[in-house]
């Protein structure tokens, strides 16, 4: 088992055990601030996580006004969702309406950071290597047919660093519906669109992937 799998497995087990100990928790999962899903309990479906991540990212994009997103709580008639900032990651917990939110927050915010700290000491920095990123689609049309997508320079640099400073020329793009395609990649050339968490995809490729502007896609680098 590779280190990142060990890390994910340990966190998944932690979340599942917290859920077993606190039946008021219906779902729980963890993702990084760049939108990479780290682990979820065994009961939470992938599509649920992806939808939640999409909602989170829309808020995160606008939260600069209040100094970034730390915690986000939604209270409804039938339940609550808490998204809490823990060690550069976010923990999502969906709990029942009568749950003692303060107690659960105390439990999760003690146990999860402790496990994260422990894992980081045993398995150093497993999440920094060429991890998939979730980005929002921005389309553009090209005179000549091309399958080159554009992402932020910083993301390419980060991937390059994790692959021994080799240039990243290709990426795999995956939609929420599971459609995938391999594309060439370069940095975003329009300064107005840089550092906005978007991926620019030619309209023709969007059509093939059945994805529209504003929708999230997952992108991961192809090792050079």
């Amino acid at each position, binding site marked *: 088992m590779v280190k990142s799998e060990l890390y994910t497995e340990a966190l998944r087990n932690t979340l599942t055990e917290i859920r077993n100990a606190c039946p008021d928790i*219906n*779902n729980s999962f963890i993702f990084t601030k760049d939108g990479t899903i780290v682990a979820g309990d065994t009961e939470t479906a992938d599509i*649920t996580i992806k*939808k*939640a991540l*999409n*909602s*989170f990212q*829309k*808020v995160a*994009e*606008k*939260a600069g*006004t*209040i*100094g*970034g*997103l*730390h*915690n*986000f*709580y*939604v*209270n*409804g*008639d*039938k*339940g*609550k*969702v808490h998204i809490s900032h823990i060690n550069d990651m976010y923990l999502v917990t*969906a709990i029942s*309406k009568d749950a003692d939110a303060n107690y659960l927050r105390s439990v999760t915010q003690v146990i999860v950071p402790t496990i994260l700290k422990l894992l980081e000491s045993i398995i150093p920095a497993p999440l920094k290597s060429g991890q998939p990123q979730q980005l929002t689609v921005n389309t553009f049309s090209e005179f000549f047919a091309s399958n080159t997508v554009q992402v932020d320079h910083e993301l390419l640099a980060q991937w390059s660093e994790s692959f021994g400073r080799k240039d990243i020329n290709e990426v795999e793009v995956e939609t929420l519906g599971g459609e995938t395609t391999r594309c060439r990649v370069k940095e975003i050339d329009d300064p107005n669109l840089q550092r906005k968490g978007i991926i620019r995809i030619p309209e023709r490729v969007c059509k093939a992937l059945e994805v529209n502007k504003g929708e999230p896609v997952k992108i991961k680098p192809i090792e050079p």
Partner: protein
Amino acid sequence: MPRKTKPQEEKIENLPSELESTMNESTMSPKLKLQHSLGNLHTNLENIKNREGIIGYIFRTPKSVSIDLKDPTKIIDYAVLSSTVLEAGENLSNTFELGRIHKVTLEGKDIKMLTVKMDDNHLTIFMDKTLDPDRIHKDLNIT
């Protein structure tokens, strides 16, 4: 041609305030209850907005928007954030089957915001990070 009878809510709405306050809330129609709650809300909001640490509020009804922010240059940013947060809250509610949303809280590094929803009316209060949004929500006394 016979004159149309006015709806009961409108008649009651025009009663003198001292008489209105003696009415039993449990006998009110949902629409009237909402009007009653909104009346209380405006009063409580006026008290809350002058507290230290309160940055301002945005109150949207289907017909109007009231904005009171200490820094008017941030009106657009705050308005966009407020509607984005509410939309994301509704999406999360659908994803996790939370039912009807009544409160959404967002905490940033510098500022916290509390959004409350009453039917088609949304109130967002922006406050300093040192304040407790739950306390503000309690003081709004939304029934």
